[in-house]
């Protein structure tokens, strides 16, 4: 029998340290998960901000990005190297989808964008189910499989890379929107479409670009996620649902809001999963959404 030193006080101290370690682990996990949600959500909020469209097919774009990353990985191009390629592919895809489809939705009644993007969701999901196997597939030989220890906290390198990549890309997007001329044009269109037209801004071009860039963000997110997640036809659904809640929490149209909302959601999910149960991890997230929409519908940092 080991001799314990000090009695009760030492027991409490041990328990306290352990609880702190668990807390720190959850905190880190939640933050990193949140950052990845941010990258998924930021594309959604940009599209909404510029053209008032909630892209309900957003999850399918993510699934597409993940499969594209898988395809590249099977050709020997790893997820990190493939990231710019996938982002570019999604950029072009987004622009095409806008030109061919979303542009027409904007001309109709407000519900047209809701069930139009819904139809796109169904179409893409159907194609995925019809053409691809429903097996879970992971990128072969993904990089960064080790674990990093920061004191009591253990983080997988992949998760760190995801979080870090998400942070960098979100910051890059923010800088683009704030400081470049195209970004300013987007903000102008977001604020007042008619005034922007009067100032000579080609709204259709800006819309298309916004849709494309929003899709590119999702593309980057998909590539990053392939570092540690498998892909299957309905893989996009849980991320999409989370993204909607993140955008609503943070405020439709606000990039900083998406970051804030995503981190909050990430923390809620991780803590919820631990203290409630893995099955119920989304419950605090959805409850939070309902509370926010009741008290402050425009979200924490939103203006509309």
């Amino acid at each position: 029998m080991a001799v314990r030193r000090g009695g009760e006080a030492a027991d409490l101290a041990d328990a306290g340290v352990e609880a702190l370690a668990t807390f720190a682990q959850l905190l880190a996990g939640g933050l990193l998960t949140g950052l990845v949600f941010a990258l998924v959500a930021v594309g959604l909020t940009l599209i909404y901000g510029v053209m008032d469209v909630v892209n309900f097919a957003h999850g399918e774009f993510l699934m597409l990005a993940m499969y594209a990353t898988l395809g590249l990985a099977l050709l020997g191009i790893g997820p990190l190297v493939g990231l710019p390629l996938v982002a570019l592919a999604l950029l072009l895809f987004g622009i095409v989808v806008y030109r061919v489809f979303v542009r027409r939705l904007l001309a109709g009644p407000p519900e047209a964008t809701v069930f139009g993007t819904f139809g796109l969701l169904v179409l893409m999901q159907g194609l995925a189910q019809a053409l691809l196997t429903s097996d879970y597939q992971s990128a072969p030989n993904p990089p960064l499989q080790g674990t990093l220890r920061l004191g009591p906290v253990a983080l997988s390198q992949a998760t760190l890379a995801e979080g870090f990549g998400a942070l960098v890309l979100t910051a890059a997007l923010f800088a683009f929107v704030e400081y470049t001329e195209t970004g300013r044009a987007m903000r102008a269109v977001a604020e007042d479409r008619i005034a922007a037209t009067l100032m000579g801004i080609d709204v259709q071009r800006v819309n298309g670009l916004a849709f494309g860039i929003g899709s590119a963000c999702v593309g980057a997110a998909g590539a990053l996620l392939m570092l540690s997640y498998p892909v299957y036809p309905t893989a996009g659904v849980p991320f999409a649902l989370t993204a909607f809640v993140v955008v609503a929490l943070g405020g439709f149209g606000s990039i900083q809001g998406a970051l804030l909302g995503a981190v909050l959601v990430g923390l809620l999910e991780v803590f919820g999963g631990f203290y409630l149960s893995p099955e119920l991890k989304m419950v605090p997230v959805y409850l939070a959404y309902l509370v926010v929409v009741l008290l402050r519908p425009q979200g924490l940092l939103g203006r509309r």
Partner: protein
Amino acid sequence: MTTAKPHLLALGAIVALGLLAALGVRSAVVLDLVFTLLLYAVLGQSWNWISGYAGNISFGHAIFFGCGAYASALCVTHGLSPWLAIPAGALAAAALALVTGFPTLGLRGHYFSIATIAVAALVEAFTRTAPWLGRANGFELPIASGWAALQFPQKGPYVVLALVLFAAAQLATIAMERSRLGYYLRALRANHAAAASVGIDERRVKLVAFAWSAVMAAAAGVLYAQYTLFIDPPSTIALGISIDIALIGVVGGIGTLWGPAAGALVYVVLAKAVALRLGGAGKGYDLVIYGAIICLIAALRPYGIVGTIVDALRRRRGAAIAVTASGAATAVLFAALPAGTARAAGAPIEAALAARASWKLTLAPGCALVPGARSGDFTVECAQR
């Protein structure tokens, strides 16, 4: 407002046709098909009230269906009459509708749509973990027989009940279109500012529509539970079911009286056709077709099949023509479907129906299995109360 007469006549024709089928047709597969069709039409119409007439698209409608189904299961397993499940399920559904709608129905459309997703996810999570709701396993309802128990060994009476429900849903919609609620919903969709200026309270009006919509879906849920005798989260409240309901509503025609029926018809026929041609490998192709249809509708004409027909023929009493055309198409399609064909594996409701064939039997107290004339045939006989 156009006169209701042609719609009432069409409804009467459909009910008459359905009754003939219920009494005359022997094939269980065909009756199954008719039952499924009618149930989907009712669900589609319920969705239509909030997403079509009110214009707020609901992506979580299955939870109201689930309210009815689970109410039925709970009543029966606690020894209560399943008829009680109708008001009980309706109340639960209406309450959920009010909770979802109250904060969101005065705001921009997407807030509501996302809220329906959030509430549906919460309800599903709750159902999957609450022991008194059967968790992930759900409920098997004990077999009984007779109108008191709302269960029948043959499918005929179920089809009759489904017809009653369908007729009720259509009549309610016809009445709604010609009521203050209907006018106010139309005005809100037509011009928001003008509607407010004549005193229309958007949130209140839409809450009423949403609550009734939920009640309708719950009634369908009760009937479904009594038909399949097996309910669990994937077959009643999963996101997939909500998506199916939305599909039917959009494809058929948002905001039109006969849209949901047309959408249900397309959905069921397409599911069968895909299953026939491609069997299990057909998974996804039906979704591709629906998705394409919805995208086309959304981009070109947001009013669906029925809406487009009605719109084009508006001045020539289009409703009557559209309805007759749909009725004729229905008859032709039914005649073209060979009896005894393979079941569709895709649709969740049909999957549950397939599962029914392999359940183990639980008999309600006082009931017994009585072997029939042919080997393998059984009927259930219950002692009179």
